[in-house]
């Protein structure tokens, strides 16, 4: 087969949902740092979100599977921890999808801008941590619903 371009590969990986937040793709999450051919092997550089993120091995598995499904036979996954992952790497499309899914996207101010359900800005923090390492728990004081906030790091 002719070697697909790195851009083409990124388009494939943009179809792979994040295992913990399937509303967004691995590319939206900003963890695919680099794609390039090294001879006949496709090298994909991945950075972890959090050091202990339990989804890491599943993510690697999903990447390999997606590439093989698209006909790539030799895949080499490289882990890169520096520069460390930051929520600035979330795509604009990813941020919109998070909000539509009910997860407030990260804000530089350190807390959600508005309730993803009713858009109220009358909010309170319930806990610094949430159901996955990348989220915190907040509540809307207008509609009283708790919601997840994607931590800004």
């Amino acid at each position, binding site marked *: 087969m002719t070697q697909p371009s790195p851009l083409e590969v990124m388009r494939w990986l943009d179809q792979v949902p994040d295992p913990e937040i399937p509303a967004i793709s691995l590319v939206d999450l900003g963890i695919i740092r680099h794609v390039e051919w090294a001879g006949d092997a496709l090298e994909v550089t991945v950075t972890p979100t959090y050091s*202990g993120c339990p989804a890491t091995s599943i993510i690697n598995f999903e990447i390999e599977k997606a590439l093989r499904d698209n006909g790539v036979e030799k895949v080499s996954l490289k882990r890169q921890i520096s520069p460390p992952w930051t929520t600035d790497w979330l795509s604009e499309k990813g941020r919109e999808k998070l909000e539509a899914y009910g997860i407030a996207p990260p804000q530089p101010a350190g807390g959600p801008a508005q309730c993803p359900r009713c858009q109220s800005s009358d909010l309170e923090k319930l806990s610094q941590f949430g159901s996955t390492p990348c989220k915190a728990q907040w509540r809307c004081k207008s509609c009283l619903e708790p919601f997840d906030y994607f931590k800004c790091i």
Partner: protein
Amino acid sequence: MSGLSKSVLYDFCLRMGDNTLILGHRVSEWCGHAPVLEEDIALANTALDLIGQTQFWLGLAADVQGEGKSADDLAFLRDAWDFRNGLLCELPNGDFGQTLMRQYLFDEWHWAMLTALQNSSEKRVSDIADKAVKEASYHLERSRDTVIGLGDGTAESHDRMQAALDYLYPYVGEFFEADTVDEAAAKEGIAPVLESLREGYDAAIKATMDAATLRLPDSRFAHKGGRNGRMHTEHLGHLLTNMQWLQRAYPGASW
């Protein structure tokens, strides 16, 4: 890399990785037992970050050692006398307040250490520090807030936090007392001079304890023996029988 540099870097990585492994395991003991659901999740996530950082440190230690071992081998196939964590990390959880006081006293040191390590002469060390410092600063924000909230809380929570501080403070000094490994690591630019972190640490915990209406003990007496493995507390052995149970019962088991 010279043989001496290798052994210094190996020892240094063990110390960092054993701190996060042993404390991470301790914190994980709270899973399903915390006073409220949000705190249970927070403790589990903190433990997860620490165990994740352990994989980096012990992974690097194993690479440097060059005997074909993995981070898992170092975590599960060493016995108590081979561990190099500060004694503070292995102390029992006690009540929730004691756990959070231990976490705070560690986080404040951990954050300062990782911040300094971002300038390490060894790129593999600064890479890990770049990653871990973000998590450590998040842990610190929470443990500091909780110590203040519980210290300046009810009479009962205040007394428990003061008792926790009195019990744990003598285990702080060990993190700042350099031995030959620390001196060599500082000389090579791998790590900061430990004592240089003390002033900032003291100022930070003083400010926190003031806000928490808690009193720092006057004595700077320090229990030692964890970071060089000379004398761990009796608690470490009990922790390891639990953590290493599977490898001890079924050597070499894998899946």
